[in-house]
């Protein structure tokens, strides 16, 4: 077959470099990705299809090699497992390619395209939704660091077939190669069909063999190297590789894969699943919308207007690029937030809260966890802030705090007519005066502050900084579901952006001070909550219950979490605080905490927050936020 190499312009070179970088970034993180965009992109430039596939695969194996070496340095690669699966994947690639050729000969190009798209949609719908669901469950288990080996993997690990057992360090156990070979084969088959074998290889290693997510994605790079090298030899033997294209893509992708690999050292395992699941679902949509085009080309079911067909194909390609962009954004965001978190951890390493509880020294008052000297009481005079006003003054009275009462006027109404604004101002002033009077009647010193602004949370943050506030007290609006998601709430924004603790009080919340509950999860945020609760117990003569939530599907954690609760209870008791512990079981930690609080008649829930913002929060939400929305009593969210 006589094929011509295309002339490369600067625009094409830059485009391939950039797509190569983004694809490399995603590959470095989840072990695969990028190929599904690069092949069609090269074909759009006029590169013959077989040359596009050949050049793509020729950039893949050196990229995978560099990525695998990098991640091996972090101890994430199981070379033996990668080689065993890689060799069987190679066989899968050869057979998958033959099936493809047979379908193309029998049904033509449209038939082949329909086959590829259908495989894409079916496989990615099943695997993608499962991976995303698992990531979601991991996150809400309250311990996103831990991965449990699933029941299927446990069963496969328990089966012993003499003569076929092989030890793999990623699994930490022997497993029969009669299981790894079919998995590798399926990975190769899928790689030959949809160009992204990792979409089946990584989930298979995680869910069927019991390999941790980070190790599975790193080991996939070894498989990709073996498959890529075999594929390159095959295509280069036929003279189809345009090495210029491959090396331009490689130039960008090696920058990306290094960065993606570094990113894996900063993130929690669930994020690998998030990136993979989101990519799979977006790629599924991309392939799904062109199925009608291929059906029409085969004269099956209906005919399609040529313009509509072109539009659907263009839209499919745009969604592919979008998928890669979204994957890369999540990776970069994970790297950035993980890096900042790491810096914060290093700064706090010598001041863990457990230490604070054990060692009462002259410096203890400097600890931010239990200091409530300056309160910012946010009020709008409505029924929603009535509970906050009442409990804020009560809190200040007991903890001997100074109160700054704040009202914000002009919220969301930049073009508010002057008479209306004046009326609002008068009402706010009257409300602040009323609060000041109520505070002084119980001996609490109070200053009132009136601010004008559109974004209430920004005004609150400004006052928080101005007065070096220790605790912000505010009410809770009744928004939930779609409204909450679309509009957000001031409370939600404050949870994400405020550096100080928040006390959220529903309007009908019971008076604080009799029964406190603190929720811990083994993190330093939970420890901070326990330290703050311990401090509050010295102000109120209340009972304190320390709880933690264990999900039903993680029974192994139960004993570990019980130890954690007992240790916290002991530390509190050593400090002269009467406390009891309880391990709660439930799939939804927020609902479990709120239900326990209601059942025990708790009047204040104290908890920490991981303080996620932006993309992380949009993807995963926040347990503290959910508790706030579900609980009937006040919630103190300890931040630092």
């Amino acid at each position, binding site marked *: 077959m006589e094929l011509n190499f295309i002339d490369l312009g600067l625009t094409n070179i830059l485009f391939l470099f950039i797509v190569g970088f983004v694809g490399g970034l995603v590959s470095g993180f989840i072990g695969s990705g990028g190929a599904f965009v690069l092949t069609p992109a090269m074909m759009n430039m006029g590169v013959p299809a077989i040359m596009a596939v050949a050049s793509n695969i020729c950039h893949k194996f050196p990229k995978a090699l560099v990525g695998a070496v990098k991640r091996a340095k972090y101890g994430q690669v199981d070379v033996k497992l990668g080689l065993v699966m890689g060799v069987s994947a190679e066989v899968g690639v050869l057979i998958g390619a033959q099936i493809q050729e047979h379908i193309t000969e029998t049904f033509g190009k449209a038939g082949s395209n329909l086959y590829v798209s259908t495989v894409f949609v079916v496989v990615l719908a099943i695997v993608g939704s499962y991976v995303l669901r698992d990531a979601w469950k991991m996150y809400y288990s309250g311990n996103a660091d831990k991965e449990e080996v699933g029941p299927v993997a446990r069963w496969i690990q328990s089966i012993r077939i003499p003569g076929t057992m092989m030890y793999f360090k990623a699994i930490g156990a022997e497993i029969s190669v009669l299981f790894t070979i079919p998995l590798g084969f399926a990975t190769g088959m899928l790689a030959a069909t949809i160009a992204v074998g990792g979409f089946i290889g990584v989930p298979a290693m995680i869910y069927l063999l019991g390999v941790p997510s980070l190790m599975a994605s790193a080991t996939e790079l070894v498989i990709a190297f073996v498959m890529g090298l075999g594929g390159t030899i095959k295509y280069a033997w036929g003279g189809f*590789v345009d090495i210029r294209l*491959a090396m331009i893509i490689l*130039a960008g992708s*090696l920058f990306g894969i290094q960065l993606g690999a*570094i990113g894996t050292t*900063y993130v929690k395992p669930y994020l690998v699943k998030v990136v993979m699941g989101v990519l799979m679902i977006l790629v599924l949509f991309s392939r799904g919308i062109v199925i009608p085009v291929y059906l029409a080309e085969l004269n099956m079911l209906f005919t399609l207007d040529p313009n509509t067909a072109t539009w659907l194909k263009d839209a499919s390609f745009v969604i592919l690029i979008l998928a890669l962009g979204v994957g890369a954004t999540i990776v970069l965001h994970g790297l950035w937030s993980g890096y900042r978190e790491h810096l914060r951890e290093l700064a706090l390493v010598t001041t863990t809260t457990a230490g604070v509880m054990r060692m009462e020294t002259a410096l203890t008052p400097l600890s931010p966890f239990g200091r409530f000297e300056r309160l910012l009481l946010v009020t709008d005079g409505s029924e929603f802030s009535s509970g906050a006003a009442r409990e804020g003054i009560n809190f200040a009275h007991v903890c001997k705090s100074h109160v700054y009462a704040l009202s914000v006027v002009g919220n969301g109404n930049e073009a508010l007519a002057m008479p209306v604004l004046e009326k609002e101002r008068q009402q706010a002033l009257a409300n602040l005066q009323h609060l000041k009077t109520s505070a002084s009647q119980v001996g609490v010193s109070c200053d009132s502050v009136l601010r004008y602004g559109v974004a209430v949370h920004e005004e609150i943050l400004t006052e928080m900084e101005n007065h070096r506030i220790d605790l912000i007290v505010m009410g809770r609006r009744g928004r939930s579901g779609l409204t909450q998601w679309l509009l957000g709430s001031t409370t939600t924004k404050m949870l994400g952006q405020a550096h100080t603790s928040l006390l959220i009080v529903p309007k009908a919340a019971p008076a604080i001070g009799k029964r406190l509950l603190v929720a811990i999860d083994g993190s330093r945020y939970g420890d901070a909550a326990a330290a703050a609760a311990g401090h509050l117990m010295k102000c109120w003569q209340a009972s304190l219950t320390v709880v933690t939530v264990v999900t039903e599907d993680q029974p192994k954690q139960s004993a570990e979490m019980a130890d954690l609760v007992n240790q916290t209870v002991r530390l509190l008791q050593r400090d002269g605080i009467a406390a009891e512990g309880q391990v709660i079981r439930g799939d939804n930690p927020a609902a479990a905490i709120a239900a326990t609080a209601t059942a025990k008649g708790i009047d204040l829930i104290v908890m920490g927050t991981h303080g996620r913002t932006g993309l992380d929060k949009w993807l995963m939400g926040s347990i503290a936020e959910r508790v706030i929305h579900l609980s009937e009593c006040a919630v103190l969210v300890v931040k630092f």
Partner: protein
Amino acid sequence: MSKSVTHTQIVSYTLLFGLTSGMLYFLLYWFEDLILEWSKRGGWYFLVPIAIAFTFSLVHGKFTGHFWDLLGVKAKSDNS
């Protein structure tokens, strides 16, 4: 990379591998026609693209690794 590598060494490595990588890409551009001619022949000439890919991955891979290191983008470690 070992912890004892100094900033000067990182700069030196980045420059060394960066220049070598740049030179390799220049050679690929300069001998473009000859390399494509060999690639097209197929058969045992398959070694040409394979050898090029391995060489570039080694040199450019080292350069990109040192590049991020130089910018301070490093993997998480307990004492970083």
